């Protein structure tokens, strides 16, 4: 509850503070989605990507694309969207290397782990 003696924060400041709190609550779940992408990249590199691995990677990338930009990580949304397309299109997946997919997942992990508060 807010302190009645303090003036209410403007909406942008209130949202920024609340987003930082939400980020801390959801960060581990977001990193789990990156772990799915890392595992799928390893499977691609070993030529052992199953249909369910691919579906899981596509879903994880899709969720990351929809989420990261809300938390002030627009580059994260762009990278996740690119990964999503790779797991969606057979031709894109055939053209991609496990190394490339691993590098993109690593970029996501770094920006998520390094995200600074908006304040």
């Amino acid at each position, binding site marked *: 509850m807010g302190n009645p003696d303090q003036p209410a924060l403007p909406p942008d400041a209130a949202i920024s503070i609340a987003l930082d709190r939400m980020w801390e609550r959801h960060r581990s*779940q977001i990193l789990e989605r990156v772990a799915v992408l890392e595992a799928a990249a390893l499977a691609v590199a070993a030529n052992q990507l199953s249909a369910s691995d691919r579906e899981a990677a596509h879903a994880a990338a899709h969720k990351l694309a929809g989420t990261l930009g809300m938390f002030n990580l627009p580059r994260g949304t762009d990278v996740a969207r690119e990964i999503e397309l790779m797991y969606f299109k057979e031709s894109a997946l055939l053209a991609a290397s496990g190394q490339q997919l691993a590098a993109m997942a690593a970029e996501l992990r770094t920006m998520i782990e390094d995200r600074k508060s908006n304040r």
Partner: protein
Amino acid sequence: MGRKILIIDDEDDIREVASLSLETVAGWEVIKASSGAQGVARAAEHHPDAILLDVMMPGMDGPATFHELRKNPATAAIPVLLLTAKVQGTDQRRFADLGVEAVLFKPFDPLSLSAQISRALGWK
């Protein structure tokens, strides 16, 4: 004007941020549902002014949920806005053809989500 919005999305973080945004920026009342089936029930129970509906959900997805809402006379007239992270043109056309009022895209800006909804629905 105070509005009541139902958010149907299986992702906790999206529900929380959308809810925070609509409550904090616009002062609207928000009801949340984490699945299509739960959303259909909440819509009939609460009669929101609009529904923000995720497309990709396990079980009953967004389009199937939309059809259920339209089948029930109690919810048939409630405006529905699809919320999607899909940006491919073919998907956008498919969603527009469903007959929803608008398609909004993830990630959304928490500061402008209520303005996007108001604009899409012609609310002052």
